[in-house]
């Protein structure tokens, strides 16, 4: 169990539930979370502070300027689970430079997807009902973005970091999950990739010794089709090494259609 007043760094300690005694603090990426039980209610607060301002106020039970959210829980609630989850919206990713994928070729990219912290409450008994999700907070501040044309598209997050061609290029940060994206060009023409969208609800989450991984995402362009077919391959890529499953995909069917990037050009 996580101890009273413990400051946890990173997601590693989140695999142990908190029994609700005392206070709980979490620091992952830029996200700082405080949790405390008060009069039977669970109080949660979050701050996005990349500096040590959060740590300096640890001794205060309810410091000023912190926006608390109070959750009224059932009497038998005895555990609070904090777990890493993928963001609830799709992620818009840009490449560092546009890449041209020739016919019958596949291009590989690696994307660092910032994780969110999912906070759930459940009864003490393991045989009790499914934990109830109370909150889900990003560990990094991501901008809002749009993938598609102004009439029809998807509301998504915009990733600050770029898709890279090598896994080690750009570093692996705590609070991120590495996603391998495979572009397959099954057409008779080359096409250019400069931005694409990752549907996080179709990806599973896994943990290795060094970092988190998602399922491999395969984007396929076929002849006479105006969009991309995306599919989530089960498991993780070989470069992830030994991993254990953390969370299954939120959507059972791991495939769908993705509009072509509206600003991309097509070489003929």
């Amino acid at each position, binding site marked *: 169990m996580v101890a009273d007043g413990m400051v946890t760094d990173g997601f590693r300690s989140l695999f142990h539930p908190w029994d609700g005694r005392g206070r709980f603090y979490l620091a992952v990426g830029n996200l700082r979370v405080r949790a405390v039980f008060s009069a039977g209610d669970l109080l949660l607060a979050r701050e996005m502070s990349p500096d040590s301002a959060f740590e300096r106020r640890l001794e205060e039970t309810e410091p000023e300027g912190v926006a608390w959210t109070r959750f009224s829980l059932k009497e038998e609630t005895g555990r609070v689970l904090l777990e890493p989850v993928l963001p609830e919206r799709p992620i*818009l990713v840009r490449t560092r430079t546009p890449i041209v994928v020739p016919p019958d070729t596949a291009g590989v990219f690696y994307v660092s997807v910032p994780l969110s912290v999912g906070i759930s409450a459940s009864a003490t008994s393991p045989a009790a009902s499914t934990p109830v999700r109370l909150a889900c907070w990003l560990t990094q*501040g991501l*901008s*809002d*973005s*749009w993938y598609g044309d*102004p009439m*029809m*598209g998807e509301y998504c997050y*915009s990733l600050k970091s770029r898709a890279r061609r090598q896994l080690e290029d750009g570093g692996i940060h705590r609070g991120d999950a590495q996603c391998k994206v495979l572009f397959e060009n099954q057409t008779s023409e080359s096409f250019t990739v400069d931005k694409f969208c990752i549907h996080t609800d179709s990806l599973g989450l896994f943990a290795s010794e060094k970092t988190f991984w998602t399922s491999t995402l395969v984007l396929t362009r076929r002849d006479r089709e105006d969009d991309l077919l995306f599919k989530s391959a089960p498991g993780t890529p070989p470069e992830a090494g030994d991993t254990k499953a953390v969370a299954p995909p939120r959507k059972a069917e791991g495939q769908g259609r993705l509009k072509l990037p509206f600003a991309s050009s097509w070489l003929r």
Partner: protein
Amino acid sequence: MVALIPSFLLTAQPGEVINVAELAPSPWSNLIRAGILIAVFLPAILILAKIGSKVVGRRLSGQAGFVTGKLILYLGTLLLLATVMLQMGFKITAVLGAAGVLTVAISFAAQTSLSNLISGIFILWEQPFKVGEVVLINDTRGIVVSVDLLSVKLRTLDNLYVRVPNETIIKSQVTTITRFPIRRLDINLGVAYREDPERVMRVIREVAEANPHCLDEPPPIVLFTNFGDSALEFFVGLWFEKSNFLNLRNSFMIGLKKRFDEEGIEIPFPHVTLYSGSETKPFPVEVTERFSVRSGETNANHED
């Protein structure tokens, strides 16, 4: 329908050859036939109206389904009424003739309502907007509460109830503000002539990129549009998810003003000179005493 009536309801002797056309059914048999007609066909009309309402409601909209159901019900009831009257022995040709004349008279009297009715059918078919969307009809901006046969009801943003005749909607330009999921906020602003336009555009872009409600795709538009009379004029276009309009407008304007102040970028404004009349010169303003707001002391006190 009359042919379905069982023969035992007609008065006749066993073995007698009957010419049905020559028989005069009794008043009671007419009533019974009419009753059977109503008992059989009225529920059928109700069921048909419900089915029609559901089918159309699924394909078009709930409102269109409601109207379709009502139309089937009214038309079916009218037909049933005419059949029952025929069965009761009424000569409806005369009634129909009178109804024809009455229809012409009513049409002249109710042409506006008829126009609204027909316009309403076209609106339901074309669906320029749906219930819950924000629309601008002439100068009225509001949320669509209901789309009815004769009119559309709006609730304005300051909570007024507005009824707009369908004929007006068909004839006017209607803007559905929330039809698409994202919108663009357009802002025109001016800065002093002494400012560097490239620097100003860079600052505006940075403020837009830092705003959490401003989408980074499509990217913000910053244009240097004109050498105005008093200022260098710029156009800023910021894309946002349609529910974030107020949040973006407030936060961007405040953020831009703060950043302009930090960068020392001046926003010019007109100055007013006061004249007491056309023949006099402007009032001169002369500082005779400096007053310190903080201490309440004047320069005169200091010198003493």
